[in-house]
């Protein structure tokens, strides 16, 4: 019935006026946006290219020919960063989830583990990542234990995982704590055990809520894998550094930065979109 009605309806002249006015307002806003963008970006560009040292900066940082030359080396280094991020990310996810669950559990039997998890987070969240990398990278091989790898890539990854697990655990825990107690009450009242409540009701909502901060940590992780270069791993940063110190031209750093951005920016946009779609699907209060 409503189908028929909607096809019979044609907008009144008032509605047509209104649509025209809305279009006009939209055009005006687009114009303001364009003018403002040109003004701000134009001013910044002018300040940059008219600065006294611009020619020198251009030659040492933005040498396109040299950039092309070092591109394959830096890209090869970036592959190390990506692998580190991927395997590290998996390990971080598992460990962080365990830590977060331990820190939020109320089970008396798990009390010592809760205490240990808290101590772990305190230590690894509080100590600078670069120190952890140095301690693990040079300290662990010095122990000369049987069966412990002395591969710097593995040791670097372990150091990064140790620190990031603590960060991510806290993000997940804050998500769990942000779910209103009424949700837990509703689940328990249906007869779900405390574990089932966590698994099927609390965690799905909590993780959804912490996707933006988790993505933030993931982007940081990708960038911080560059720090393992201090152990001698030839990642993108290291590869750029080697080339830059060979010629005193800093273009390789810019190439590395651009490569990192090419990965992180699309990732951020994609996640933003995914979150927006899910919010809209769950929420009827759309207009504000």
């Amino acid at each position, binding site marked *: 019935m*409503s*189908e028929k009605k909607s096809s019979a*309806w044609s907008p009144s002249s008032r509605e047509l006026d*209104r649509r025209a006015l809305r279009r006009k307002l939209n055009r005006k806003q687009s114009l303001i946006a364009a003018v403002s963008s040109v003004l701000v970006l134009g001013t910044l560009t002018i300040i940059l290219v008219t600065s006294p040292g611009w020619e020198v900066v251009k030659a040492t940082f933005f040498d396109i020919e040299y950039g092309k030359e070092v591109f394959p080396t830096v890209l090869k280094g970036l592959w190390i960063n990506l692998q580190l991020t991927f395997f590290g990310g998996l390990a971080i996810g598992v460990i962080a989830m365990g830590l977060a669950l331990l820190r939020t559990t109320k089970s008396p039997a798990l009390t010592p583990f809760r205490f240990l998890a808290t101590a772990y987070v305190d230590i690894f969240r509080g100590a600078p990542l670069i120190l952890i990398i140095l301690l693990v990278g040079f300290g662990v091989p010095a122990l000369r234990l049987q069966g412990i790898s002395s591969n710097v890539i593995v040791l670097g990854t372990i150091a990064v995982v140790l620190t990031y697990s603590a960060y991510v655990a806290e993000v997940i825990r804050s998500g769990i704590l942000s779910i209103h107690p009424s949700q837990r009450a509703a689940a328990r009242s249906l007869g779900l055990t405390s574990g089932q409540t966590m698994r099927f009701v609390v965690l799905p909502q909590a993780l959804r809520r912490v996707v933006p901060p988790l993505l933030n940590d993931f982007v940081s992780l990708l960038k911080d894998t560059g720090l393992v270069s201090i152990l001698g791993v030839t990642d993108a940063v290291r590869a750029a550094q080697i080339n830059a110190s060979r010629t005193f031209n800093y273009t390789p750093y810019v190439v590395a930065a651009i490569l990192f951005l090419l990965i992180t920016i699309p990732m951020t946009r994609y996640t933003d979109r995914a979150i927006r779609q899910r919010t809209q699907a769950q929420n009827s209060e759309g207009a504000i």
Partner: protein
Amino acid sequence: MSNVLELQNVRKAFGSEVVLNNLSLQVPEHTATVLIGASGSGKSTLLRCINLLETIDDGQIFLDGLEITDPAIKVDEIRRKLGMVFQSFNLFPHKTVLENITLAPVKVQNKDVEEARDIAKKLLSRFDLADKADQYPDRLSGGQQQRVAIIRSLAVNPRLLLLDEITSALDPVLVNEVLSIVRDLKQDGMTMVLATHEMGFATQVADEVCFLESGNILERGSAEQVLKNPTNPKTQEFLKRVHQAGRL
């Protein structure tokens, strides 16, 4: 008597589903208009359109003669003149009762903090909630929360109050404490539009009752007329079902 609110041929569709279809309504000053009808008949959408929470597809809405559906209108300024109370209270859980009530007077109307607190406290004691001023909403009963929500919307002196099934989430014992506030407001001459399933209450406060069915007002008139002697078969059918559910 001038119309505070006037709707002319309002149409609102979500996709192919037409929720409000060529609907017109006048609400004179100091009157209460009660919207009744089954769930999905468009009552809530109508209130949300008036509050500009939804953009209508056609027609016009006037507040004190000013067309508020004009795209060039400042939406925030219009909303300042309207109070809205929701079915699910929507109090801010991180603020105390007093802070909930004084937020808009202080931040929107730029009232002095002390003055806003005085007004809030007067309203709270008038509706027997003075001792709850420093409590957080989650510690209150549903009825108390909804009364606070009503006071919150009153604190900005709205020209028109929109009440969207404000007792639907409450148990019958608590319903009356909420409705008695609305009765008081009616006595004070507040202009109101309310959607409700409480027919007894509708009889007490309504100057006009409108029966909505698939986005249209099928029958309108005094409470006596529409609720006691409905002429439209669909109204009769609806009231019969309400009666069977024991809500008349």
